[in-house]
């Protein structure tokens, strides 16, 4: 009978404790609180700019009903919401607002005479009025307090989360917390087992949140309790204690890498639908891109034929340029030494190896596009075969430094009429080149000027079809008739190298109208002779190897596609490519004699509308397949 009464009483007590815990957070009128951390924690560039992407973590705190959702909206692009389950805080007096001995629902862990446990008025931000302070003046042992007698009910092997806000002053060893499992010891008594220990903090620091996820790793577990404190001497404040049945901490993580000025609005809502107000706002600015688009390289003669004012345009669309960082240097000995003559107009003065200030127009920090100028520079002689080069550099307001490519004074350049140019690497012409419409690359574009002023930079690489791709889609085994260029439309295949020469160009080839032909060359293509096709005809070469144009050739008339290199040689003859070239790499080393480079391009690419109109007949067609249901 006595045992029955004892068991009944014990059961009632357990039930009372359970319902006390379960019903603790019925009323919650306090809104949650969000906090945010950035990584990097502060701008890693100049003038408040980040020059790397930022990793954000938004954490929600609610000591009562728990976090229901964390919400954020970046640049008003749309609300993002992350929801959480089972975030009800199961801890009694989690913010230490209720006093006691030392605090309501909390007891000293040991009969500790070497530390003082008090309710303190220094509370963690937005977490009530009070915190719990442990002030230990001696001893290296644990000075802690716990909620063992008000433990949180939990099931065996349950996943739980915990968190505590901690502030410290001169903590000699460590401040942290421990999670203990409460389990049935088998004789009607509770027993305890240390389950997990939180990360530790030491020294002196402002309020920070420590978190710990754990598993209630005992088959007879009844619940868990938390023991807060420090080893050794020092003072530590604790606030906002939370233990929940959620398997994840109420936080969300994301990265922002887009360049520009940003505004991040964020707030939390708890399970009682209290919304955090006002919503928090975090502003920041990112610029990961160096000044680029070095274009409009211009030589303005100043006196004799080897003295020029050199200017170039550069752009930084995000933070803008820092005009004080604009500099230049040049070389008159084919790139062996770089610097400037102390007297720019006198090659007999001392040569300084370094960078010299360039002027900027406009001359104001933050400008997005500026023209840098050197003033008059004497390049010592007009022997342009001894390459003379110049380069510029400039930083933006965020501290990203960009550098132009090396510009060749009176060097060879190319021109694209009506055609666009794109590189899956970059465009870095040695001398200012021209394109009528669009210049683009997967990174930077330097020293090519678009008449239309259209540029694509840092653009995703465009897909390329190789020889094998084309052949798989549009095969042919038809050999070239008599081993010569075709005179009738169709697809042809050559399983060796092929040379365009006098004896492989059929008589009257350039007069054949409405010819639409594709020639596959499973080898190298060598073009040793000028040739043209009729203005209404289109000839496309698809080459497995390299394409080499002989030095003496001045006109070729086809569209060339090659897996290898398009090499125009290194002669002084101007080359006109009537059509276009798609290649893996280019070797464009032709350079005109004397001062011809200053007025004429060494290579001209003349894109023709006839290729889409006429040349497609052998290499095209795309199909869409729509599937409908049954009847």
């Amino acid at each position, binding site marked *: 009978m006595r045992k029955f009464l004892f068991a009944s009483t014990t059961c009632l007590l357990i039930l009372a404790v359970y319902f006390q815990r379960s019903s603790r957070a019925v009323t919650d009128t306090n809104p949650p609180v969000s906090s945010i951390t950035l990584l990097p924690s502060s701008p890693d560039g100049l003038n408040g700019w980040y020059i790397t992407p930022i990793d954000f973590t938004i954490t929600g705190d609610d000591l009562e009903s728990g976090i229901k959702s964390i919400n954020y909206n970046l640049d008003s692009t749309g609300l993002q919401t992350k929801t959480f389950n089972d975030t009800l805080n199961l801890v009694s007096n989690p913010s230490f607002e209720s006093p006691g001995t030392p605090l309501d629902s909390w007891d000293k862990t040991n009969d500790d005479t070497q530390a003082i446990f008090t309710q303190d008025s220094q509370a963690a931000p937005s977490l009530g009025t009070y915190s719990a302070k442990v002030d230990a003046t001696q001893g290296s042992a644990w000075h802690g307090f716990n909620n063992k007698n008000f433990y949180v009910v939990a099931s065996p092997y349950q996943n739980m989360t915990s968190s505590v806000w901690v502030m410290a002053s001169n903590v000699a060893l460590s401040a942290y917390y421990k999670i203990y499992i409460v389990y049935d010891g088998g004789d009607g008594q509770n027993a305890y087992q240390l389950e997990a220990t939180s990360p530790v903090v030491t020294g002196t620091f402002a309020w920070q949140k420590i978190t710990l996820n754990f598993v209630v790793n005992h088959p007879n577990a009844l619940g868990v309790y938390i023991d807060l404190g420090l080893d050794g001497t020092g003072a530590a404040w604790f606030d906002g204690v939370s233990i929940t049945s959620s398997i994840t901490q109420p936080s969300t993580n994301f990265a922002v890498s887009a360049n520009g000025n940003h505004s991040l609005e964020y707030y939390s809502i708890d399970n009682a639908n209290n919304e955090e107000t006002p919503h928090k706002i975090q502003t920041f600015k990112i610029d990961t891109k160096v000044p680029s688009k070095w274009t409009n390289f211009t030589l303005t003669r100043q006196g004799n034929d080897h003295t020029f004012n050199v200017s170039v345009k550069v752009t930084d669309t995000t933070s803008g340029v820092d005009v004080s960082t604009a500099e230049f240097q040049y070389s008159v000995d084919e790139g062996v030494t770089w610097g400037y003559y102390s007297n720019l107009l006198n090659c007999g003065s001392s040569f300084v190896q370094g960078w010299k200030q360039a002027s900027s127009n406009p001359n104001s920090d933050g400008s997005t596009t500026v023209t840098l100028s050197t003033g008059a520079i004497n390049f010592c002689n007009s022997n342009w075969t001894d390459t003379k080069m110049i380069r510029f550099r400039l930083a933006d307001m965020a501290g990203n430094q960009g550098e132009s490519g090396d510009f060749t004074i009176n060097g060879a350049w190319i021109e694209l009429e009506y*055609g*666009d140019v794109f590189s899956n690497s970059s465009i870095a012409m040695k001398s200012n080149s021209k394109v009528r419409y669009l210049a683009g690359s997967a990174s930077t574009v330097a020293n090519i000027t678009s008449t239309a002023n259209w540029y694509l930079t840092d653009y995703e690489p465009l897909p390329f079809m190789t020889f094998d791709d084309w052949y798989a889609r549009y095969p042919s085994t038809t050999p070239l008739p008599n081993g010569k260029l075709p005179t009738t439309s169709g697809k042809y295949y050559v399983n060796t190298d092929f040379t365009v020469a006098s004896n492989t160009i059929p008589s009257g080839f350039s007069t054949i109208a409405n010819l639409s032909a594709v020639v596959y060359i499973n080898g190298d293509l060598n073009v040793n002779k000028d040739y043209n096709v009729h203005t209404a005809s289109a000839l496309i070469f698809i080459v497995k190897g390299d394409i080499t144009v002989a030095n003496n050739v001045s006109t070729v008339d086809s569209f060339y596609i090659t897996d290898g290199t398009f090499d125009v040689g290194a002669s002084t003859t101007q080359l006109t490519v009537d059509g276009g070239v798609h290649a893996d790499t280019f070797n464009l080393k032709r350079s005109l004699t004397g001062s011809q480079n200053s007025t004429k391009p060494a290579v001209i690419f003349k894109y023709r509308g006839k290729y889409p109109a006429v040349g497609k007949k052998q290499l095209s067609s795309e199909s869409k397949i729509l599937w409908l249901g049954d009847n």
Partner: protein
Amino acid sequence: MTIALAVGITISSRSISTARRTTNIDTSSRALAAAEASIEYYLARPVSEMNGLAPANCNVNPATLRYPAIATSSLSSDDVMTYSEVNITRYGCLSGGQNAKYDIRKDGVLELKLNSSSGSLDICWESPPGGPEATLYYHYIYEPNANDFRIKKEGYNPVGSGRQSENNMQYANPGNCFTRALPGTDNPRLLRIMSLYAPSTITMTAGAGTTLQYQGFTIKAAGVVAAATQPIKRNVTATRSLPYLPALFNFAVYSNSSNNPID
């Protein structure tokens, strides 16, 4: 005994039912295969042949073709005859005020055959929500004199995108729209529209008095299993555009290397 018979009947019913379901599945698969085979066949036919099979104009009921054409070749090894009934029509014809929609994948091209149309085309576009908006960049190819092919190019950024600071192209009109004039004296031939930065869906509206020719073929195939106890038809539809060169042909110079610049 009675129970055994009942079980036997149940098993038999289930077997028959299973067999019937198996048969229906087999019939359905055969019909689908026949439809697909005919689609594949006509997708590979030369444009000249397709032109002969489709009615001269859009929106005209086509004749029904049978594929395979020869009856005996429709017989399978188990003497089940399957074939496909095929209708081929043209799509894309527009006259003043009419519109058509086309999808363009990112960095892909839509090529419209203008075939000397005159007037204008109003072009509007949108990109899938949640991602960036496309910028449209077109090549307008015309032939004012015989064999004299010329090009005009234009690019339009989406309204309010701020992208002009990146590529210096102009912004479109409200609604992400612009108009491409088609002067008769140009003898317009092609309009190649490239979708930069993102995929797009284009709505093309012919201006008043503008007529646009067909842009491709629609192939509708209904696979049939003859003499099936429960006749099943499986329908497949495919569209096949008129030939065009890939988007990369918009570039006069293109370098594929990711390591070596054009210099």
